[in-house]
């Protein structure tokens, strides 16, 4: 069973993504800030991390993504950045920290499922 880590400071969004992905055969973990994301990622070694870009706390989404991608325990994870901005600068920044893809808010849950399936199927 694939593990997915959802990171967003808003509980509505976390729940939205969680419910959206419920149809798939995934084990879902959540985190509400960058620090937590890093800890959970290291511990649970998710196959996929969906990371919100803008979060308060010690690390924002980019920073957390970078750390996850650089830590030996979690670097295997695929990281998709979730952003409400979608400007070129964000996309570039994402690439810089090693994120594999990005997704723009607001999104269609159906699109999200498709994306996740794609990404995790590719991995196989």
């Amino acid at each position: 069973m694939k593990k997915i880590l959802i990171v967003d400071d808003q509980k509505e969004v976390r729940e939205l993504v969680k419910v959206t992905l419920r149809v798939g055969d995934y084990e879902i973990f959540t985190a509400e800030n960058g620090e937590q994301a890093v800890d959970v990622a290291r511990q649970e070694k998710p196959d996929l991390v969906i990371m919100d870009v803008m979060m308060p706390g010690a690390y924002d989404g980019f920073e957390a993504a970078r750390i996850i991608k650089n830590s030996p325990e979690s670097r295997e994870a695929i990281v998709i950045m979730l952003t409400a901005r979608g400007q070129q600068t964000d996309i570039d920044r994402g690439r810089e920290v090693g994120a594999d893809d990005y997704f723009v808010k607001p999104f269609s849950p159906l699109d999200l499922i498709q994306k996740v399936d794609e990404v995790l199927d590719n991995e196989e």
Partner: protein
Amino acid sequence: MASVLIVDDEKGMRDNLEAFLKLDGHEVRTAADVESALEQIKGGKFDVVVSDIIMPRMSGVALLQKVREYNPNTQFILITGEPNVKTASEAVRLGAFDYIPKPVRGADLRQVVNAAAESVRRQEKMRQYQSSLEGRVEESHRALELSEEKLRTVINHIPIILWALDEEGRMTLCEGLGMASLGIDPAAIIGMKITDLYAGDKFVSRDIERAFAGETFRTTHFVRNTVLDSFVTAFPDLHGKVRAVIGVSLDVTERHRAEKALQESEERFKELFRSMRSGVVIYAVENEGKSVTIKDINTAAEALDRVPREETVGRELLEVFPCAAQTGFLEKIIRVWKTGLPEHLEPHLVETEKITCWRENYIYRLPSGEVISIFDDVSERKKFEDRLQEQIQFLETVLDTIPNPFYYKDTERRYLGCNAAYEEFIGKPRAELLGDTVYSLLPLQYAEIVDEKDVELLQNGGKQTYSTKLLRADGEVRDVFFNKATFSRPDGSMGGLVGIFRDITDFNLAQEQIRLQISALEAAASGIAITDYEGVIEWVNPAFTSLTGYSLEETIGKKLSILDSGHQNEDFYRQMRSCIVSGQIWRGELINKRKDGSIYFEEMSITPVYNQLGEINHFVSVKNDITERKAQEEKIREYSQDLARMVEERTINLNRSLKDTEQARDRIDAILKSVSDGLIVTDNFQRVIIMNRAAEEMLGIRFSQIINRSIDFAIRDMELRKEMKSALEADGPRHLEFRWQKDNSQKPMFVTAGMSKIVDKDGRQTGTVTIMHDVTHEHEIDQIKNELISTTAHELRTPLTAIRGFSELLLTRKDLDWDEKTQYLKYINEQSLKLDSVIKDLMDLSRLQSGEPLKLTVDICSLNEIVTDIVAQMKNMTDRHSFELDLPTEPVLIKVDRDRILHALRNVISNAIKFYPSGGPINVCSSFDESEVQICIEDHGIGMEPEVVGKVFDIFYKADISTTAAEGAGIGMSIVKQIIDAHGGRVLIDSKPQKGTKVCIRLPLYKKMNA
């Protein structure tokens, strides 16, 4: 009384005999047989033994023999029963003393025993006597031997001579080590008469007489080179007649010599002491120096001190001469006495009652420990020395006063001395040059010249004069003129040389100059006449002669008035004269007459010449023929008049055109200056020919710096330069926007530049013109606009995410249960409200941006009610935070737009929630005072850095990446500020990173409810 042993085997006999003998007091023992008798004899000595002849085992005779063995002195008495002669004679032959026949009569016994005892006694005595005699003889013998040995030792080791003379005076004995030193063989003189040996020495004969007279005496006499000290004694015989004379002599030659020498030395000393011309005084120092007494003084001392011996000898030095302490003399005496080292007291003044003089002392310590002072009156010497010193000083002063350098050397050309002027010239003090030659003073080439001359002078003697060059201390080479001479010593030998020189450099230079000047004057093209004060000519130059026709000889003694042509009047000459005698230079023109009568124009100057005292003693006239020049001057005057006329006409025209041009230029300048855009004009070669103020500002470079230089110097931006260059080629104008940073410290500015060609009236390109427009502000505005749009999009997208997402789920998914569906609808509702709130903020913001003030609908409201209301609303927004309310008990009224205030509070609390992600209590408290109410909302979240706090209200402030906020932080607080400001209140923020934020809103109090 003796000790007797009775030996008889008959007891009765024994007893009888014992009884008889005891009557005489003898000590009696008895023995029964021979064995026990021997036992007893062994044990002790018996004088007499009385024994029976016939005894068992051993006869008395045998006993006798035995006893003899033991003690031969014991007298034996035999008692015989048979009185026969044979036995008796046998007994006596054997050594018995006597025999007694039996029956023994007591009286006989006693008699015989007594006789025997007596005999024993006598024998004993005799033996003792003999032994003592022998002993004495032995002793004497030994003593004699010892004496002889001693004598021998003495004779053999001590250099004495032992001799003896018989009554004839003949040498009978002459022995001893001393003979060796005499070098006389004793054997040779034995038997000779002493008087013969000492023939002629009447002292010896006299001594012999004395000796034979029985005297014992000591005498000294000479043998060859030896001095003998002799002890002579007479040797009388038993009758007292002197039969011999014995003497012991010791070689005392050395001692004698020494004594004599000492004596002589003492004599000499005494003589010296007496006769010396210097005063000699001997002192005895005692008591560690506390007492210094005069032991002796010589005649000279008496005379010098004028104090007789009697008054000085034996007395304390200080008593007689109290001044000895001040002069240091006493001190020296004591020191010499202590150290033994001689001292010298320099000539010093001595003043006593009797004398006043200068004295010099030499003080020594004698071997005896006494201190001797030898002194002289050096008053005369002192006087001479002083006088000499005076003369030397005087001489030195004189020499130093002489301004010419002076020195003197010895025959080896070493400096003996010099004066101050020489010291100055060579730059060394005289002490340094004494003993050195000139080679240590001057460089080789100069020293050699000097030394050569010195050697010549010393060889030839006499005097020497010459000029040469010398190197002065300051490095300058000077011409000098030498005067040297040799001097001789008192004994007539050459002592050395003296030299004195004059520095003639200046003189030579002056000479040179004069020569030069004279040549110049001679060669001068102008006529020159030198006159005295009265104007009488002393000298004229050749040019003068060519000018005037008068030769040198013809002019000397005459005045310049010989040239007078009559064209100048008296006043003219009077003025000239008064000018020059007052010391001024006169210049002017004259018309003069030559010797041949011809007239000419002359330009003349007269210069006064001063002597050393400052008086005018000569005048120098310089004359030039200006006849030609005069003619030419006239012609020039005509021409210049015409020229002046023409120039005037032209100038008027030129001025007119110039004025027009200036006006045009000023106009252009004004335009260029006022234009706020930068303007650069270049020619076809891209050289900058015009640049205005604004361009200077923009580029940060002055026109004066780059005028006529290539544009490359002015424009650093590659692109712009490229564009400008391509504008030259292009047909139409070109545009470019570029970012320009004038210098690193400033903000970059944004500039648009438009370039186009300039063509002249014939259509030929003459250059380019570039106009630069500062669009920085517009750029900023654009940026802000972009930011705003971006932010807005973000603010709106965030609630939309939930709305879109959940609505799609609700529509498409079949797996949702009732609770989930309700929850999701709730989310959609909430987020749409949120969306509405955000849009409201944006609307307000946009209105505020365009300057519209916030429209308030105010009403009187209760503070507590508003606070409670908003908290109730916000509670639902979070499940992680709790709200702690702290409201005043006294109700308070405020006049506010309720909706707006709620909106503001909502924004603040929303931020508190968002920036407190860990969750916890949020404190909401309100309070009031006389004029204001305050509502504070405090979270314990992530807080803000101090720099951030200040910017929170900035409309487009987005917190930096490290504290990236959730949605709404961008504009929420700005709205709050606008709302509160509009109410006449203020917002205060207190925040600490990691600790939390406290936002306090203050509003004017309307009324207290209970008031």
